[in-house]
């Protein structure tokens, strides 16, 4: 693959540099395309423009200070990354999380899945020229961020939850905002679907564009909505349930062609299923503690820190990152916004991880991009990229 040479066989090809900063690629992606007129003959992807050495960084930080790093992986659904990391550490130390905290986590994770899919699906529409729906549905994403803000004080890079549970219970205001969202979002989503789903232009632009077969998708390590669009019903929430996902009833939508339209539709349906899960969680959430009894990892009440010696000691140890953890290696994965987000953690018993490896779904499936756009038009390549939901932060870690 040599994209810079201009003569393959007899023809003259031209080289087009798409990116790294191009308004149509929604992030820092560079693709050097070899073009035959409007047709893509070959392409080479360059990644790493926003590499921040997270794996090295994580080896130098205590466990609770790694959560903010995970925010910056897939920043469209940071809470899922945060929860995934907390659950990895909880698995390592063998902590039991109370049901209430697990349900609260499920609500937050499903909300962020909706936010993630809103971004992806509306952006697919924008790339086909439908700006209206994008502006319309972003209102609801804003509402989700307001709920996050009410729960943890942050919006995009949330740092939500703690090792051992949640940092605080949902406030009445948070419940109110959640209710408001659950009441109004179905109307908005239905409106958007009416606008786009069966729209002739949209269908012409997306059906049979950027398709991938099941075998290829598995070979390339696809997971998440992109794999399900190709027809494999693999979902980590069902295959290896975590955080009480086994308590909820929901369907896994699958596609048939693995093309852009299927990826769009799978995400659409997943939003409805996420709503279903949230409704069940809100209805059945049990009373009880919102964090586990883990004095060595979970910060004590501030009042206790001033009055009780143990609390003061634990507070100091946690803040200074001096808590010892068991030795061992553990892998935990969650269903992230765009696939199986895995954490492989090796601990030598010290204050920081000995090795932390992130299985980042974007990084793994983005290498199929040249194969998916080969033989297609340039404008379809843009659409294929946005429908794969490649997030630069997760790609480059």
């Amino acid at each position, binding site marked *: 693959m040599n994209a810079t040479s201009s003569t393959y066989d007899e023809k003259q090809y031209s080289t087009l540099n798409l990116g790294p900063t191009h308004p149509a690629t929604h992030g820092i992606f560079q693709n050097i395309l070899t073009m035959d007129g409007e047709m893509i003959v070959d392409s080479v992807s360059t990644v*790493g423009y926003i590499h921040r050495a997270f794996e090295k960084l994580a080896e130098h930080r205590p466990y609770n200070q790694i959560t903010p790093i995970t925010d910056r992986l897939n920043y469209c659904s940071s809470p899922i990354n945060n929860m995934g990391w907390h659950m990895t550490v909880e*698995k*390592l130390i063998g902590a039991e999380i109370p049901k209430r905290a697990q349900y609260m986590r499920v609500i937050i994770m499903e909300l962020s899945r909706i936010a993630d899919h809103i971004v992806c699906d509306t952006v697919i529409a924008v790339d086909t020229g439908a700006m209206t729906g994008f502006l319309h549905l972003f209102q609801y994403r804003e509402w989700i961020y307001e709920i996050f803000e009410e729960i943890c004080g942050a919006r995009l890079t949330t740092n939500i939850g703690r090792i051992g549970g949640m940092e605080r219970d949902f406030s009445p205001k948070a419940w109110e905002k959640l209710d408001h969202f659950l009441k109004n979002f179905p109307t908005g989503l239905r409106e958007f679907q009416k606008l786009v789903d069966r729209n002739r232009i949209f269908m012409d632009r997306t059906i049979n564009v950027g398709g991938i077969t099941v075998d290829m998708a*598995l070979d390339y*390590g696809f997971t998440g909505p992109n794999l399900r669009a190709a027809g494999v019903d693999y979902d980590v929430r069902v295959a290896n349930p975590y955080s009480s996902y086994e308590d909820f009833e929901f369907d896994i939508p699958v596609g048939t062609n693995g093309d852009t339209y299927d990826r769009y539709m799978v995400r659409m349906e997943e939003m409805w299923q996420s709503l279903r899960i949230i409704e069940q969680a809100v209805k059945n959430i049990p009373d009880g503690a919102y964090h586990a009894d883990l004095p060595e990892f979970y910060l004590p009440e501030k009042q206790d820190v001033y009055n009780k010696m143990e609390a003061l000691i634990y507070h100091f140890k946690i803040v200074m990152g001096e808590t010892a953890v068991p030795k061992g*290696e553990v892998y935990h994965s969650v269903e992230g916004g765009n696939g199986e987000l*895995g954490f*492989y953690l090796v601990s030598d018993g010290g204050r920081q991880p000995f090795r932390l490896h992130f299985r980042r779904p974007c990084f793994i499936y983005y*290498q199929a991009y040249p194969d998916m756009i080969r033989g297609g038009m340039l404008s379809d390549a843009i659409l294929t990229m946005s429908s794969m939901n490649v997030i630069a932060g997760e790609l480059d870690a």
Partner: protein
Amino acid sequence: MSELLEIVKNKLQDKFGDAVLASEMHYDFPVFILKKELVKEALKFLKEDAELNFHFLTTMCGLHHPENPAESEFGLMYQLHNMPKNWRIRIKTFMSRENLDMLTVTDVWKTAGWMERQEFDFFGFNFVGHPNLKRILNMDEMNYFPMRKEYPLEDMQRDDKNDKMFGR
């Protein structure tokens, strides 16, 4: 999950004999440590065996254990998944700093392409037969392998962050 450990262990021992150096459960994962020379063959066998059918390479990563004896200082970890049966296993292998050659598995799984490039980039493993083994996340001009333990977190060229006064 420990039944899975037995099943895979028996299959591997039948096929590769004493190349299986160790097998144990780490939390919910059966982990097998194999001799480096046979790893690729074993991975291929695990994928192609009809019963085991580990058709999916979930992830792989490099490991650096400076505290290990010299012949097992560096390691590689592969995680395989059989989706229909929901079986997951981890294969590990260790090697010395002098010999970081490893047969590529890009012809078994296409997804290994970038995974191997990443581990080459950060640890310097030489994946023999890889179609395009060059740095992927770091800049091409970098002349060291940053994830090795001997390299500090901060850029070694920097001298404006001298912490002598304040410890830590």
